[in-house]
């Protein structure tokens, strides 16, 4: 319990840092891009909206600590201003309408990469020096050296444009209305294949190598020798004695990986024009839509922190040593 509370405190500090960073950036940056943005869209905004923007970006003349307090107030009430590029939709609404797609894309890719990568790592370590162990790691490291978005471009060109096997853009075919019908789900799945595959391909190598290395260390433990001496089936020794103990470090890196997958998903979305937060972030950047950019940053950060906290809670459940100390 103490562990969980101290972790929670840590994540709150991390969240405080990112909010403060968000607060300070527009106030201390040279060139004052925000007032330019405001003057461009002055005519379209209502006075209240302009006021809220002033609070968010520090264009009011109040002392800085008052600005800071009202900024926190805005964060807690969920008022992050209106989006400039999708005027007059509030930032929170833009994010709410698109975060689902990012979760779907990133979540699917993460789960596939974790399951397949770790299984490969277990097998490679078990048959150390075998075919799997000697061929796959270098290949995966090579694939992992490609930038996410470039692999996505290649996949899109090869399987989308040239071969025409998969749809080129968006999350579902134009003209379809989102519903839980089998046709729609199949359509969404077809649109997911290429983006998910690219993210999985780039990230799977890290999982495999990490698992392989821990598993190699675990395999030299005395209890493995003991299990073998008892004459247990090899598969049982591998999974129940070896892999089970080797999953602990993988759990820790799972938390870290969430952040990376989010980043990869953002870039992949841009290539596939997938209507998630990453695509929206790019649109926000090119339209100088600062409220939306900051909103997306805060949302993603909060989501990653929350996910990490969940991982910690699971970790306490998995590793009794944490509970004792």
């Amino acid at each position, binding site marked *: 319990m103490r562990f969980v509370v101290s972790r929670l405190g840590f994540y709150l500090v991390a969240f405080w*840092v990112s909010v403060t960073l968000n607060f300070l950036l527009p106030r201390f940056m040279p060139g004052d891009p925000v007032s330019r943005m405001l003057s461009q869209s002055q005519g379209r905004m209502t006075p209240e909206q302009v006021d809220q923007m002033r609070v968010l970006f520090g264009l009011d003349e109040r002392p800085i600590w008052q600005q800071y307090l009202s900024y926190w107030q805005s964060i807690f009430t969920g008022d992050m201003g209106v989006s400039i590029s999708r005027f007059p939709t509030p930032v929170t609404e833009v994010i709410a309408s698109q975060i689902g797609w990012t979760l779907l894309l990133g979540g699917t890719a993460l789960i596939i990469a974790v399951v397949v990568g770790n299984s490969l790592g277990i097998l490679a370590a078990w048959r150390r020096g075998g075919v799997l162990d000697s061929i796959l790691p270098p290949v995966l490291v090579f694939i992992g050296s490609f930038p996410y*978005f470039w692999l996505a471009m290649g996949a899109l*060109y090869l399987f989308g*444009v040239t071969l025409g096997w998969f749809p080129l853009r968006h999350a579902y075919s134009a003209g379809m209305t989102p519903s839980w019908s089998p046709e729609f789900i199949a359509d969404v799945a077809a649109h997911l294949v290429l983006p998910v595959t690219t993210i999985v391909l780039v990230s799977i190598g890290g999982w495999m190598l990490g698992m392989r290395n821990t598993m190699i260390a675990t395999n030299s433990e005395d209890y493995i020798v003991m299990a073998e001496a008892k004459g247990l089936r090899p598969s049982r020794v591998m999974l129940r004695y070896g892999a089970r103990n080797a999953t602990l470090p993988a759990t820790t890196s799972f938390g870290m990986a969430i952040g990376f997958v*989010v980043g990869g998903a953002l870039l992949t979305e*841009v290539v596939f024009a997938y209507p998630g937060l990453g695509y929206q972030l790019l649109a926000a950047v090119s339209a100088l839509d600062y409220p939306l950019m900051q909103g997306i940053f805060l949302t993603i950060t909060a989501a990653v922190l929350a996910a990490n906290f969940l991982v910690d809670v699971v970790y306490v459940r998995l590793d009794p040593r944490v509970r004792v100390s």
Partner: protein
Amino acid sequence: MSATDPAEVQLLVATDHREILSGPTAPAALDRPPRHPVRQGLGHSLVANRKALTGMIILALFVAVALLAPVLAPGNPSTITSLGAQPPSAEHLFGTTAKGQDVLALTMWGARSSLLVGFVVGIAATFIGLLVGLSSAYFGGRADNSLSLVTNVFLLIPGLPLLVILAAFLPTGMTTVILVLTFTGWAGSARVLRSQALSIRGKDFVAAAIVTGERAGWIMFREILPNMASIVMITLIGSVIFGIGAQAGLEFLGLGDVSVVSWGTNLYWASNDGALMSGTWWAFVPSGAAIALVAFALALINYGVDEVTNPRLRSTRRGRASRRAAPGSATHQEVNR
């Protein structure tokens, strides 16, 4: 040399002196992996290590191309030299972009900015990570707690969105890209280097140095640092890989200086000019392949360093039973992290 851990000291000294001493035996070492690479010095063992050698050759080629770009492809690479979207031909080996620029020239010139930013970011991030990690491990206590907190917070905040908002608010330019990437990239190095420094901090020779009354800076940089040279190198290379990839990602999103020719901006323009949909694959393949090759070469060097300095990874073929008996592994156990 005041450090007292013989094997590890040797590792460092070896890089400068052993190369000269073991000169005549070098050709033999190239043919097959040496039995005790550590004894021969890091530089030599790296050349003898097939992975590291391949990596170094690829990297050297790219550095040469970057340096020689003004000779190999004279003139401004962005000038329009022919019709747009021409496939590779004798005149334009890599074809031309939709605008009519020579892709080969763009790729060669792009190496300059990409490699420069990558290496500067890598060195800067490792340096900050080293400062934080060493002082964290050396001073311990409250300093360690607060520095570790900052490090972990930076590790946790998702990198790409942070990069994007930082780059969006700062004025565009190469300096911004370098600053932003260093700011987001140092934490990983700091964490690795701290844990390594921590294990050396507990060794007797550090305690001896403290008793002798050495200054903190001296102990950190002259006693602890030399004993973790290989992990510093691994971290450095990792940071360079991060720098090159992240710069490309940032520029691909249009957040770099799009007027500078680099691999990232090449991809940005290829994507913006609709290279994918019009089927001009040659406009985006070379720059991406270049990034991947450089990253792969660096990763190979890293594996080489790891294998050479870490005996636990060397004995792959002999199976897991013999690994425990590997001689001399005790001195390097902490390196594998």
